[in-house]
């Protein structure tokens, strides 16, 4: 099946985008990334010196995984724009996962600062992938502002609470003309599968893998879950019924498999 994920004009076979936060060691992270099959991984620019040797960037380079710098830790549009520009200079990519959080306790994205930063970064030639709440209107406005994707949360970062408002995610998916990437909140494989079944184009996760008892095994589970959810979405689920319907052929119907 030729089901390519196109993001910002680039093609990816994997629909699982990984984050690197929370891994106990670089080796564990490396094994998890390999097991996840990811081709795109986001790195917090404010927690990294791009020039230093033996960093997470070296791990990604060795695996030929594309780096998606993010602006985690920024509270204002100004900080986020500055961080994105530093990342472009240091890494030579104009892609940025835009993350402007509102407070330390919830780490929820600040919609107004995010929109402000998105406008400025789009004008500056960036491929902007904004992390947002599950607000269909904000998603639409960001798409209109020129963002290359929208990244609504399933639940707060690191919470592992899953997709808390599937209806809103469906609404975002329905109207979006850019890829929708479910970002944050994934706790286990079924959460990732659900996000894909709802029609998301990809899933971004980190903690669910890096803080698992066996990160490599959970990464493999996520790879399977994203693939399973995607195929289920393409296949089309059956309508829900209140009562049972026998799956064996009924007499009064023509059945191509029957005699």
């Amino acid at each position: 099946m030729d089901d390519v994920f196109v993001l910002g004009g680039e093609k990816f076979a994997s629909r699982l985008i990984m984050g690197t936060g929370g891994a106990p060691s670089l080796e564990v992270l490396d094994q998890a990334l390999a097991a996840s099959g990811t081709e795109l991984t986001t790195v917090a620019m404010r927690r990294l010196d791009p020039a230093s040797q033996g960093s997470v960037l070296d791990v990604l380079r060795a695996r030929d995984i594309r780096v998606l710098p993010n602006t985690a830790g920024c509270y204002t549009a100004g900080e986020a724009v500055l961080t994105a520009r530093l990342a472009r200079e240091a890494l030579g990519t104009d892609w940025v996962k835009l993350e402007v959080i509102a407070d330390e306790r919830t780490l929820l994205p600040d919609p107004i600062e995010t929109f402000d930063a998105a406008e400025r970064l789009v004008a500056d030639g960036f491929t902007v992938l904004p992390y947002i709440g599950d607000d269909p209107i904000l998603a639409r406005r960001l798409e209109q502002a020129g963002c290359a994707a929208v990244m609504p949360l399933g639940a707060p970062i690191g919470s592992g609470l899953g997709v808390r408002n599937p209806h809103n995610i469906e609404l975002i998916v329905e109207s979006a003309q850019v890829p929708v990437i479910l970002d944050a909140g994934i706790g286990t494989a079924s959460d990732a599968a659900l996000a894909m079944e709802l029609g998301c184009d990809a899933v971004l996760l980190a903690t669910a893998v890096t803080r698992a008892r066996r990160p490599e095994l959970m990464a493999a589970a996520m790879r399977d879950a994203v693939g399973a959810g995607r195929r289920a979405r393409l296949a089309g689920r059956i309508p829900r019924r209140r009562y049972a319907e026998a799956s064996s052929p009924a007499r009064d119907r023509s059945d191509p498999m029957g005699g």
Partner: protein
Amino acid sequence: MPESAISESPTPNSVFDVAVVGAGVVGLSIAWRAALRGLRVAVVDPDPGRGATYASAGMLAPVSETTFTEEPLLRLGLASLARWPSFRTELEEASGRTLDYRTDGTLELAFDADDLAQLEDLAGFEETLGLRVERLTGRECRQREPMLSPSVRGGLLARDDAWVDPRLLAPALCAALARARATFVSEPAVKVQSGLVRLAAGAVPAEQIVVASGARSAALLPGLPVRPVKGQILRLHGPRGFLSACVRGWVHGVPVYLVPRENGEITLGATMEEQGFDPRVTAGGVYQLLRDARELVPGIAELELAETRAGFRPGTPDNLPLIGPTGLPGVYVATGHHRAGVLLSPVTADAIAAMLTGSAAPPLLAACDPSRFD
């Protein structure tokens, strides 16, 4: 530092049996254990005990440091912890100094309900590994440590964890080495080759060489998979007995620790940052540490903030140290101890000393083979 221990002769005429490059707690321990085996030892470092050792908290805490995926490190840590009582006794005798070695256990606290769930998960993991941990309620934690915040939800007591003051440990090792007639070369090494440690001017000839230069070891052994992991750490001063146990905690998912000393100092740490050799103490780093520590122990706000500092842990890809021979004949390495240099010094020193005197690397050290990433 004991100035008397430092010889000012950078280019000794004779050939040493062993030159140890780097006088942190790991290098000094190796030098001392080698000297005890009768080897003629030189220690090459412009400022003994003033690198990562000087920043570190000195926790001997393999149990409360345990995380998922790190069982080999735990086993190594437990083995080294078991050596600490005799290492301490021998060193105090050999140096004539005391170390402020404490065995009152580590109290690991949860600040909110999420932290408690995380701690519970960890406790379950530790039990599957056969470790001894006790679950305490918030009230039980506060009975042990009255300065704790009433908000503390609960905790784990790791009775076997201990701690020591690294700022007493390094000078004690220097004193023991001076008594063992080791030579201190107070200059930085610029290059290491078989049989020779090159200095900016001159060189130290030695039959065998041990590179124990922490995060900077890769400058002497190019390609060595060790990187600096920056840690910002604070020293507070308060009344003696302010805390009796080593207190660690999770505050909204962020770890913090407070390590009390006999003299009333409290070491409060530490950030974990991938920032290369950036020596700056930042407002954000200090803020984060004080913010979280004050949640656990509100009374620290009244203490003197005596010192802020940043140090560089030597990190490796798998968080296990690099201990053993290198590709250069007669050149060994002992670095990559990351968060556990003080804890792992006895096991590292005994292993390297054995190798220097012709024994094979002990099986315990198999996971620490420096060539495992080649």
